[in-house]
């Protein structure tokens, strides 16, 4: 079964058609990349998949569950259970340590477990920096904390919107290594990127243009 089905999704902001009749299926365990020029609707699409927004028209099925009719609080509940989000601007809470930032996601999901949170930081190679505040971490380290936070509740679907957009090459390499490992463990990953090198790693690349799917490239290894 597909983990995600988008059927004829449209998203209209006033006169702007951010998404225009998009249909897409993503399989369980698949690694998908989305590319496209700025303003082509990539973020809009991620917001809809990540239960942060509802489309103007069309239906979204996440693990077979129809999302488009749900209330904001039900969407929040599904996002909490099934989706791990990674952002270009990291979005760590400035007054909490790396460890606490990870634990916040545990808290709103179920129960906090400091050992498990430390384990997640260890997986992204930041065990030693657990007690540091975001401003004491480099950009790459901050992004790895975000990944640890996105992973902590074992989401079925990991959504990353330009995760390496603010990173240098070395850190980009580290983050991609983590994605590779996650994919190897069976996670479903959707990455929005401008960077062809990042997109190359995915099994399938979807090109958006003016809110429509312009091209799909399958790169089966």
């Amino acid at each position, binding site marked *: 079964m597909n983990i995600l089905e988008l059927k004829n999704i449209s998203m209209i902001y006033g006169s702007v058609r951010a998404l225009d009749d998009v249909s897409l299926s993503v399989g369980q365990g698949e690694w998908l990349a989305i590319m496209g020029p700025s303003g082509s609707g990539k973020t809009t699409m991620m917001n809809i998949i990540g239960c942060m927004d509802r489309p103007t028209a069309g239906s979204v099925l996440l693990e077979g569950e129809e999302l488009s009719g749900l209330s904001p609080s039900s969407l929040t509940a599904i996002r909490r259970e099934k989706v791990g989000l990674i952002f270009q601007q990291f979005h760590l809470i400035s007054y909490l340590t790396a460890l*606490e930032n990870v634990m916040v996601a545990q808290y709103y999901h179920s129960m906090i477990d400091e050992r498990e949170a430390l384990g997640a930081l260890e997986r992204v190679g930041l065990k030693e920096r657990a007690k540091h505040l975001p401003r004491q971490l480099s950009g790459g380290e901050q992004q790895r904390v975000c990944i640890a936070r996105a992973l902590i509740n074992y989401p079925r679907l990991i959504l990353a919107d330009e995760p390496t957009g603010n990173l240098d090459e070395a850190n980009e390499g580290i983050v991609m290594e983590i994605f590779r490992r996650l994919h190897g463990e069976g996670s479903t990953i959707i990455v929005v990127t401008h960077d062809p090198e990042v997109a190359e790693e995915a099994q399938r690349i979807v090109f958006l243009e003016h809110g429509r799917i312009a091209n799909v490239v399958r790169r089966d290894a």
Partner: protein
Amino acid sequence: MICRMLMGALLRQRGRVLTITLTMALGASLATAMLNVMMDIGDKVNQELKAYGANLSVVPKSVSLISDLYGASDDGAQENAAPEKYLAEDEIAKLKTIFWAFNIVDFTPYLQISAKVSGPSGTVEAQVWGAWFDKHLDTPTGESVDTGMVRMKSWWDIEGAWPARDDPSGAMIGASLASKLGVKQGDRISVAAGHLGEAVVSGVFHSGGSEDDDLFVPLPLAQEISGLRGLVSKIDVSALTTPENDLARRAAQDPNSLSRHEWDTWYCTAYISSIAYQIEEVISNARAKPVLQVAESEGAILQKTQLLMLLLTVLSLACSALAISNLVTASVMERSAEIGLLEAVGASASEVSFLVLAETMIATLAGGVAGYLAGRGFAQIIGHTVFGSAIAAKGLVPPLVALLVFAVTVAGSLPAIRLLASLRPAEVLHGR
């Protein structure tokens, strides 16, 4: 986790938190000072005004009638020594048994006689008053009271001193009488009215009134000289009163015109007329006459001052609420991405609102406590500079201030929470 998040928010953003704390402390200190002074000021102003004399005068009914009818002052009473022209001295303590006993602050009986007073430079006919100077009294209710002229004539300008308590012959002489007789502190004078008595001048006073021609001697001495044992001509009473209103004025005219319910209300309120009524109930043959003008202006001054203070309290708290609302709103705006993030990882808008409110509440509570303590200090400063005395800490103030701090916090956080509810994580997280 909530605790860790709050701790993190409070400890690692000290600047922001301190500003809110300080703002609240400022408002709370003003509110505390004003409320404390406002609640204490009733007593303070009354005590201030009490210094300018009695507000009730208790006289025998018959004397009251004569002076009411002819507008004449009662003098030369001892010539016609009918007991109904006097009050019994042993009934005075009953003043402390009426319903409003605690509002009766001070009282002094006077026995008025006309006598020949002799000193080194001659003899004059003068008004002599037997009075309590500094009297200790055990009331029928088992209380002990210290009262007398020392307390009721505290504004007198005195050369020398008030007679010591229980001094049988110490006297206070008015300045103009003293100069006629050529006496000063320590001199002996003789007083004759039926019987002959001797007194020693303890102090010479300037009252600025007609009393400067009079002589005040201990009550037992005056009673002995005049042969009016156990009797007094009037009792001056100083009572704390509630400002008069329409009900009180109607009651003063005729208590029987009130309905049962009105009567109860009136009787159980410290109007000067109800205190007067109650005094007449316990002292036989007496008429208690309010000195209404004084009582009324007391009430008016008090109400206006209290209104002013209330206004200041409300204003200062409104300012605090405004300032806090600005600070919290700015903080929410500045942290909109963090708030969006919390919602993105599964917090509901109400959970985030709770967090912001709790954070603000802790900061304002700290400010409230600090402000309360500072306000107590302000109240003392106001008390000493304005009223020349300490302001009592009123027990009602801490819970009231706590309630106000709470209300200000909630009111101040409301705009921020409304803003927060309208934040869309999908937008703030992508920097729109």
